[in-house]
Structure formats: C-alpha cells, structure tokens
C-alpha cells in the first residue's frame, strides 16, 4: 500500500563506516553520496520506535562479509530539507523494511552530487548507535 511522503517526515540514513563521521560528531558528505543507480537508501521514521529504526539499521549490515561494515549510527533529516535541494524521497518497499525509501532526482555531474551531499550532511542530525539503544536483530 503506497503512502504520500510529506515534507514533515523524517528519514534516516544509516551510517555504516566510522570515517563518515567527523570527530565533532558532524557528518561527512560521504554518507550522502548516491550510488551508481542514483537511488540513495534511507528509512522513513513514520511511526517506528527507536528500537525499530535501529533494528532496520542492523538488518542492513546483517550477514555482511566485511567486518568493517558496522552500524555506527544514523543521520536523520527532514524530507522537506531534501526536497528544497530539488531532490525527492520516494517509497522503495522492501520485504524486510517496508519503510525503506530512496532519495532520488540526483544530477549526473559529480560536482553537483557532491554539493548536494554536502548540503544534506550539513542539515542532518547524527545519532550514534550503541548496543543499549536496541537489541540486535
């Protein structure tokens, strides 16, 4: 069942590498650069509890072969902030994560992607993941 993603919604970009986070707790552009298919994965908060959000984060790295890929934290950002950069957020349902979405409408040029990633990173709020916050999935 599709739903409208309104500007006031919040989405989470799971941070899977420590070097995406600066020493002062701010987020580097690396966390928001799109992959080759220009669909940047995020998870909608909607009515999820903190535990449920973190559980989705753990599912992303579950069974990953590289031990360096870990759930470090997440970067939360409002959909309205994303759309003001001429990007969009669309549903991208996954069986294990019905709240999965994509940030889309990225430009093709690398410098423009970097500029947008810098803006998103500057606007996002970082929360570090600790085991106490959630039981592992």
């Amino acid at each position, binding site marked *: 069942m599709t739903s409208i993603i309104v500007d006031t919604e919040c989405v989470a970009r*799971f941070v*899977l*590498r420590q*070097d*995406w986070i*600066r020493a002062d707790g*701010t987020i*580097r*552009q*690396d966390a928001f*650069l*799109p*992959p*080759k298919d220009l669909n940047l*994965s995020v998870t909608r908060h909607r009515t999820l509890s903190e535990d449920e959000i973190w559980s989705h984060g753990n599912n*992303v*790295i579950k069974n*990953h072969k*590289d031990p*360096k*890929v870990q759930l470090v934290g997440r970067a939360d950002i409002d959909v309205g902030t994303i759309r003001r950069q001429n990007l969009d957020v669309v549903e991208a349902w996954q069986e294990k994560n019905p709240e999965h979405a994509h940030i889309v409408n990225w430009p093709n040029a*690398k*410098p*423009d992607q*970097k*500029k947008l*990633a*810098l*803006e998103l*990173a*500057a606007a996002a709020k970082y929360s570090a993941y600790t085991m106490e916050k959630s039981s592992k999935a």
Partner: protein
Amino acid sequence: MLLKAKPQRYVLLGMRSSTGLSASAEFVNERFAEVREQCESSCTLGHGSSKNELSRLAMECQRDDWDGYGARAISMQACANASKFLCIIPPEMPQPAIGVEPDGQVSFEWYKDPRHVISVSVSEDSNLHYAAIIGSSSQSGTEPFLGQFPSSILDLIERIVSR
C-alpha cells in the same frame, strides 16, 4: 621500517584457516602491495599521516560493497592519482581528511564547520571534482589534474581554513 612492516600486513590481510592464503587473496594482496608502495613512496614531503591513511583506505575498500550500500571498489588508478594529489598539497596547508566515495574515487576534505567545508575528489581519468559550502553560498566544479594545485580550489580552501 614500513617495508619491514609489510610482510606482517600481508599475512594479516590474507589470514584464512590453517590452509593459508587463497590464490585470489594472494592476488589481491600483491595488487594492493603495489598501491601501498605507491602511496608510501610517491611523497617525500609532509602529509605523512595522510599517506598512511590513504594506504589504509586502499586496503579497506579494495572489494565492492565496502560501504554496505553497493559501493564500487577503489581502483588502482584512483589510488595512484590520489597519491599524486597528496604530493602537490602545499605543506603549509592543513592535512585533509581522506575518504573513499561510492564510485571508488578518493576524496579529500578541508573542514572548519558544516557551513565551511570543501571536498575534492580525484578521479581515475585525472580530474578533480570539487564542491564547497562557504556560509550561505556553495560552489562546485571540475578542474583537470595536471600536476599542479588548481588555483580555484586553493582559493576555496584558503577561504575555508583561514576563517
């Protein structure tokens, strides 16, 4: 000293079960030994810890999906170009933070605060893609990497770090 440390790193990287290195692991090790050697030998002036950081990232990001989101592995050429870029950073400039991007390019960041930051990516085809936020404005562009530090990027970095 670093040369002596290398064999240990190879063994550590290739550790499997008691059967030892697989053929593919050995191949990967050898390829990235070349990269590491380039990273460590190409610069003799300053930014020593940046060289080590580049070497570390080259090892960590040598396989696809190193970021958990399907990123492309860092390429030998990207790493070599990044190593050359390190060599031309003026020694009086602060050391940048180094990262790897989903397309396998290496990035260099100079940062003051989230609204005063510049990131420069070094591509395989020897281009420098940059983006900067300076207060309420932002700039981005591409400069060819011709062996000299582009003045346009230098100006932006100086505006950010001297704030």
